[in-house]
């Protein structure tokens, strides 16, 4: 199922609605890159609140989106990682070190608007 991507000012919000297959994840990556380019977006929020599993493929793909968009001058923030999902990711060995995260959509938008505190 395709992930809807909304444009909000200079930012894009990709709101994942249900469990993603690997194909869906790759489609999301391509869609985000296309829209970042089309709208000259400065930031992207990927809302994963509804994901009950983030395995190594999804994690790696989101990391990939963050790195690719950064090369286009846009920052990505992953928001809404559920507590038990975070626990599983750490056990799995996913660090997400170079990816910005925030508690929820509101915090993520605040982070983008603040420009990451000047970085």
């Amino acid at each position, binding site marked *: 199922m395709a992930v809807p991507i909304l444009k909000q000012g200079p930012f894009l919000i990709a709101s994942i609605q249900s*469990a*993603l*297959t*690997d*194909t869906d994840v790759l489609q999301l990556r391509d869609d985000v890159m296309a829209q970042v380019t089309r709208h000259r977006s400065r930031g992207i929020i990927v809302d994963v609140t509804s994901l*009950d*599993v*983030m*395995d*190594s*493929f999804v994690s*790696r793909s989101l990391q990939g989106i963050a790195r690719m968009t950064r090369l286009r001058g846009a920052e990505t923030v992953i928001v809404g990682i*559920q*507590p*038990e*999902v975070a*626990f*599983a990711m750490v*056990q*799995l*060995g*996913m660090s997400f070190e170079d990816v910005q995260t925030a508690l929820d959509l509101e915090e993520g938008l605040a982070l983008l608007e603040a420009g990451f505190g000047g970085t």
Partner: protein
Amino acid sequence: MAPDAVERIAIESDADVVTARQRARALAVTLDMPSTDQTLLATAISEIARNITTYAKRGEVCIELVRDANGRRGVKVVARDHGPGIADLERALTDGYTTGGGLGLGLPGARRLVDEFDIQTAPGEGTTVTLVKWTRG
């Protein structure tokens, strides 16, 4: 109580990977397994089921409820394929080693997420991964 049925899910596409982990979670729910443990189990299944589509193209995941000698209940998962097998199992169980272009966290990561983990494999003869997540207490 009647013996628990084995649920068999053919793994041929990435959608089947999602189905396998959702079915296992549904079974774990019937045992009142804590939500965190359900997530660990579902994540482990996602990793080993993806290994099937990545390396063997097709295979199957069988899920069943089990109980040990002390009456403790759990979910047992067997992921089986007749793909190429794993030549160097020790390395395949090491973090960061991959021949499939991923992060190399699949097998070693899945092992950390469950209570019991066993793998039988030989080059040319496929791979069978068995894992169990027990309820606590």
